[in-house]
């Protein structure tokens, strides 16, 4: 459903993205991992239509993406900067629905369902700054879900929360994925996280970015923070991705 074709992006003489090609299928959960500074955020901005690529294209449902499409939602890493501090949780989640043709009842049903799905029912009238970091990111996820996207892009969404909260949020995202039946592209620099969450992993090379390898993750679902991570297959995949990234980083360093 989402195709990245010969995508390249340069800023002046700096080639951030070299030549990227991959495809994401319907209802897939794909993690994109790469060494730090490999242009993951640039890639995500191109995929979401926020940034025009220098060459190549991104196609969603066979149409080129030139501006943010309606079928797409994005969860940013900086939850504290993407939520509006002057709006209650309810109004934050409602904001993207304002231009959709929905009647009032339908709109508040979507909002309340999404907030309930992320485990924040009862916090509708609180303000983001009254919530913890993990809860704020849940609000951002609820906002994305209420928007009813076909595809959800996530830019290192759990990078700024503590380890325990992070595990909770990982399980949360697996849950809501089932419930909302949505395709997810999840950018992260955390290898464990990518193996734990995904159906497939796209491993990127350092800048100028290209695809290093694409791996299928055939771990059983539902995933479990303890049991899944005890599996031999988990360890094998984790080590494999780790070596890919490590080798690339070492090669660049030389």
């Amino acid at each position, binding site marked *: 459903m989402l195709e990245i074709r010969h995508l390249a992006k340069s800023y002046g003489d700096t080639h951030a993205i070299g030549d990227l090609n991959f495809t994401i299928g319907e209802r897939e959960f794909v993690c994109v991992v790469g060494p730090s500074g490999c242009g993951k955020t640039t890639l995500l901005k191109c995929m*979401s239509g926020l940034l025009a690529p220098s060459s190549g294209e991104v196609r969603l449902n066979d149409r080129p993406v030139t501006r943010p499409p309606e079928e797409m939602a994005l969860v940013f890493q900086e939850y504290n*900067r993407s939520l509006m501090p002057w709006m209650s949780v309810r109004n934050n989640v409602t904001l993207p629905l304002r231009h959709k043709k929905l009647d009032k009842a339908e709109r508040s049903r979507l909002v309340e369902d999404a907030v309930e799905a992320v485990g924040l029912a009862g916090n509708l009238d609180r*303000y983001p700054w009254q919530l913890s970091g993990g809860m704020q990111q849940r609000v951002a996820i609820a906002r994305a879900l209420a928007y009813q996207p076909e595809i959800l892009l996530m830019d290192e969404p759990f990078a700024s929360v503590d380890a325990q909260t992070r595990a909770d949020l990982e399980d949360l995202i697996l849950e809501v994925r089932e419930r909302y039946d949505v395709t997810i592209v999840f950018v992260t620099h955390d290898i464990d996280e990518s193996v734990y969450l995904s159906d497939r992993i796209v491993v990127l090379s350092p800048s100028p970015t290209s695809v290093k390898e694409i791996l299928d993750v055939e771990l059983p679902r539902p995933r479990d923070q303890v049991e899944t991570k005890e599996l031999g297959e988990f360890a094998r995949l984790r080590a494999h991705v780790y070596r890919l990234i490590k080798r690339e980083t070492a090669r660049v360093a030389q």
Partner: protein
Amino acid sequence: MRRVAPVLEVLVPIALLGLWAVWSAGSDTFYYPPLTDILETFNETWLFERVGSDVVPSLLRLGAGYAIAVAAAVLVGIPLGLSRTARRAASPIVEFLRAIPPPALLPLAIVVIGVGNSMKIAIIAFVCLWPVLLNTIDGITGMDPTLNDTTRVYGVRGLTRLRLVILPAAAPQIFAGMRTSLSLAVILMVISEMVASTNGIGFFVLQSQRSFAIPEMWSGILLLGILGYVLNVLFTLIERRVLAWHRGARASALS
């Protein structure tokens, strides 16, 4: 300390007034009459004999000039804040106009608009415009880029974006500008009334001095001080209400 501070807030002014009263008691200097005389005159003059003839006209000029300035500054500031091109084109003019010392415009304003209320309102509005305008522009250009990306991704556009995202994001800055403008408004109200007027508090103060009614002059100065203080308190109350989220967000970011 927390409990002492509010008490001091009341006690220090009272103590200073007391000192003034003691120091000036029995004074026979013409220019520094006893505080009791000033207060007596204050009572006779402002409670409430001259309220209708001087205070109300002054406040109306102040209010009208200030309101026009804030509305115009925000309206002009929005496009300038949103468009870099517009900003570059307007910036020399803005910098030039705001560099003119406002009282220097009075002679011109009198010639062009006359000596009536419109002249005073125009002068107040012209002066109050700049702090609000510059702060509106700053507030909008300083918006977090992530916020901008968020509105784009979720298709929040046009008036919804302006009303629910851009203006609230810039509101703390806009209020900072409005606070500066408020004190400018009081200053210009007084000056414009001193130069060309037949009523108003500024007119009264100058007129009293010219007719050697020194306690009256003092009482007018006192009234202006009180007026400025009260306006500031009112402003703070409104600001706290409108920007409650800002205080909350800042407090939680610091903790």
